[in-house]
């Protein structure tokens, strides 16, 4: 056994070192391509998912949403907010009240949810204040001002998904009328229009909490959105808040993902299918390389057997060669991916409607793919090697 391994290792080294460099190059090159390809598709899809999730978190939900257990709204929100902000790992928290209403300008009408927000803390959780395409975001002392999502205002951007349901041509400085439930009407000046490029959040409409108090007196805080520092688990913060109060319920951003969840789940399935296909391609590649090579080596293998090298040793020598190709190929592939593909993509990222997609480097995945590739290579090389060994020595040496 030990002798077999040592002879197989010897033969494999000579096979690689003294055979046609074209063959070595080809085999390794193919593995590099396959390995980079698997990592690329999976990183791209993961990048895509993370861009979408990032958008969702930063413009729509925050990391954690705090809701009242009953429908009366959250009791003494000011104290609660203060306490939440003191929790380790909380980057910001902001409260929202909201009411459905109809907006109109001239003939155009649009249904929207009017949210009363705290302009001084909203930006601690959400990026919306940074994504103004016209005018400015709300400030604390604004009076009769409203800020519209682009999907509500229209703002003459006809490419918007919901443009036809919007007010179409409202711009900053225009006046819009809001019809509240119960027949109350109020005219606001559009202070600004934002575009987060995430259509659920671009359907929002904001007024200050003071304004909200005027139109919905006694309206209670309906939700608190919390942004966490990077890497802080949602469950930790939820547990901390649970210690403070028992009349609350919690949703993580994932539970609030809605359609995004279905979408990203689909992508994960696609990711697996593509990964499987890429691995299949790898298997076939290694199989073909070994197969074609072994057809040319039949006579040599026949001679090796005739002089007393046993079949397991010969098979092992081709296995070791396949292993060598795969390890070198995936190592080069990993270097190419980490030091070329990812940085280049980072410099010229793919752009999708939700923003830029960056390849997500995941070393765990890379190792798993390399291990799978090695396993696949072992099987793919075994089949042709075993088939060649089964030919009789006579046919191998003297046959054709």
């Amino acid at each position, binding site marked *: 056994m030990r002798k077999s391994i040592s002879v197989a290792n010897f033969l494999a080294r000579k096979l690689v070192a003294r055979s046609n460099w074209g063959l070595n190059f080809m085999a390794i090159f193919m593995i590099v391509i396959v390995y980079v390809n698997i990592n690329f598709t999976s990183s791209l899809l993961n990048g895509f998912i993370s861009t979408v999730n990032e958008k969702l978190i930063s413009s729509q939900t925050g990391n954690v949403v705090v809701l009242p257990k009953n429908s009366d709204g959250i009791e003494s929100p000011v104290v609660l907010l203060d306490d939440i902000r003191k929790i380790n790992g909380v980057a910001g928290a902001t409260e929202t009240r909201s009411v459905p209403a109809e907006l109109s300008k001239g003939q155009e009408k649009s249904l929207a949810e009017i949210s009363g927000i705290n302009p001084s803390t909203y930006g601690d959780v959400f990026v919306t204040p940074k994504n103004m395409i016209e005018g400015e975001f709300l400030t604390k002392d604004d009076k009769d001002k409203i800020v519209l999502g682009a999907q509500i205002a229209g703002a003459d951007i006809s490419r918007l998904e919901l443009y036809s349901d919007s007010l179409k041509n409202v711009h900053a400085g225009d006046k819009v009328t809001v019809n509240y439930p119960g027949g109350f009407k109020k005219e606001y000046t559009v202070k600004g229009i934002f575009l987060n490029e995430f259509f659920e959040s671009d359907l929002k409409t904001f007024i200050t909490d003071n304004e909200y108090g005027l139109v919905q007196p006694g309206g209670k805080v309906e939700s608190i959105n919390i942004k966490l520092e990077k890497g802080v688990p949602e469950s930790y913060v939820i547990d901390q808040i649970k210690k403070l109060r028992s009349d609350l319920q919690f949703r993580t951003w994932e539970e609030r993902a809605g359609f995004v969840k279905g979408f990203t789940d689909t992508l994960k399935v696609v990711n697996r299918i593509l990964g499987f296909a890429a691995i299949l391609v790898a298997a076939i590649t290694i199989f073909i390389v070994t197969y074609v090579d072994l057809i040319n080596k039949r006579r040599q293998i026949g001679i090796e057997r005739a*002089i*007393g090298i046993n079949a397991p040793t010969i098979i092992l020598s081709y296995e070791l060669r396949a292993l060598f190709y795969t390890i070198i190929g995936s190592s080069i592939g990993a270097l190419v991916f980490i030091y070329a593909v990812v940085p280049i993509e980072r410099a010229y990222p793919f752009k999708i409607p939700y923003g830029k997609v960056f390849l997500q480097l995941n070393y765990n995945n890379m190792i798993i793919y390399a291990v799978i590739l090695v396993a696949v290579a072992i099987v793919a090389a075994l089949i042709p090697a075993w088939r060649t060994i089964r030919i009789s020595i006579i046919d191998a040496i003297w046959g054709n």
Partner: protein
Amino acid sequence: MLKIKNASKIYKLGDVEVPALNNVTLTIKEGEMLCIMGRSGSGKSTLLRILGLIDSPTKGKIYLSGKDVGKLKEKVRSRIRLETMGYVFQEYALLSELTALENVYLPAKMLGRWPKEYKDRAITLLDAVGLLNRMKHLPRQLSGGQQQRVAIARAMVNKPEIIFADEPTANLDSKAGKNVMETLYWLNKNYKTTIVFVSHDESDKKYASRVVRLLDGRIVKRKPI
């Protein structure tokens, strides 16, 4: 030491049966240098391969030191070939990725009887066949005669009891051929290695201690006309 009894070999080519050996009985004695002669197609190579456990007879038995080795598993036959037999083929049969030296020591490395000295053995043998200065050459960098001598050194490396050589000079010019035959002869005389070689060159008889003639797969007493 090696004996085949009533051995026949029939090759099947589709529906056609090609008889290559017909009821051959032959005993090879220790230390002899046996020459198998006969026309092309008479079954010389077939006989040699059966003797060398590379092929099996369709019918008949084969004994090595009295033991029936005809029905052994390939794994065991492979071991016997490695331990007790050496081969020199008609065509150059070196492994193209190995140097002359590596070709020679490969069977010794596999056998492992001399874990430390197998390289030295190979070098000594290459020296004996006059190729010390070609040690690092790959087969394609050697002439035909040189390759055959490397093959002889390889056949020798495990101190086999018997060496088979199938027309080892067929592809060589007469000078190189003579050189190869003399190497085998010298092996037989100096190391008492049993040698069975095939030739259709009548002048090779002089190296042999005994000649067996084949005609259409049968052993015949006399040289056919």
